[in-house]
């Protein structure tokens, strides 16, 4: 069966990308070097873009690459280099009582896994799903979701002005 072969290939791709993303995310929160953390974050964000393509969301994947890997990462690296005298490993990045984070994150994960297994079990994605076109997405944005889009425009304007006002030297 061709269809099942395709699905197996998709599953293998999902597993590889997911493992890379989880490893990258763990490195982001454990590494001792701020620049390395930013670069591991690139791995996670690129993996997310790949998952979007796997989930038939091409436009969102391209937007993810443009906005996150293009713009946000440059902002992060600028922020790191503007606030750091030196670039390299540092000791003082974690809180003193960092071990409290482990049970909190573990309990949260256990709760979510139980809830997800309860709710979705072995429900499958529709196998004959078509790729979502950009036209469908734009019909949504400029149709029923026009008001949130306007609100978002004002939010971005406010954020740009706010960032300039905050970072300005006077």
């Amino acid at each position: 069966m061709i269809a099942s072969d395709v699905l197996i290939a998709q599953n293998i791709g999902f597993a590889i990308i997911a493992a890379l993303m989880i490893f990258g995310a763990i490195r982001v929160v454990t590494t001792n070097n701020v620049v390395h953390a930013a670069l591991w974050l690139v791995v996670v964000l690129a993996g997310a873009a790949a998952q979007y393509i796997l989930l038939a969301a091409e436009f969102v994947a391209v937007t993810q690459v443009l906005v996150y890997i293009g713009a946000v990462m440059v902002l992060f690296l600028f922020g790191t280099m503007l606030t750091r005298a030196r670039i390299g490993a540092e000791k003082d990045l974690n809180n003193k009582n960092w071990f409290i984070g482990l049970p909190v994150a573990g309990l949260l994960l256990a709760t979510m896994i139980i809830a997800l297994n309860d709710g979705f079990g072995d429900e499958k994605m529709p196998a004959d799903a078509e790729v979502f076109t950009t036209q469908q997405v734009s019909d949504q944005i400029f149709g029923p979701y026009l008001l949130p889009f306007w609100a978002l425009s004002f939010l971005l304007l406010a954020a740009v002005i706010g960032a300039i006002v905050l970072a300005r030297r006077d």
Partner: protein
Amino acid sequence: MFVNQFLMLAAILFCIGVYGVIVRKNAVLVLMSIELILNSVNINLIAFSLRNGTADGHTFALYVIAVAAAEVGVGLAMVLLMYRNRRSVGLDELSGMKG
């Protein structure tokens, strides 16, 4: 492909992000952990969009990306301001409002 595998991946990334927010002291690293959390939410939205066969999730994911970009811009401006005033970006030193 199961629906659950994407939701599980998103849950794991979300928890790693929460761990980062709790553990990290450096403000830039806390912002990166928040990005992890927002990304896991986006994976959920896109997965449900494919499951339901509508493009609503894509719209919301794009809105979340835009909000995250705005958040990072303002957040890093605040970090810069904090560094300029205190010569450090440690969040535990921001105790000026403590009585």
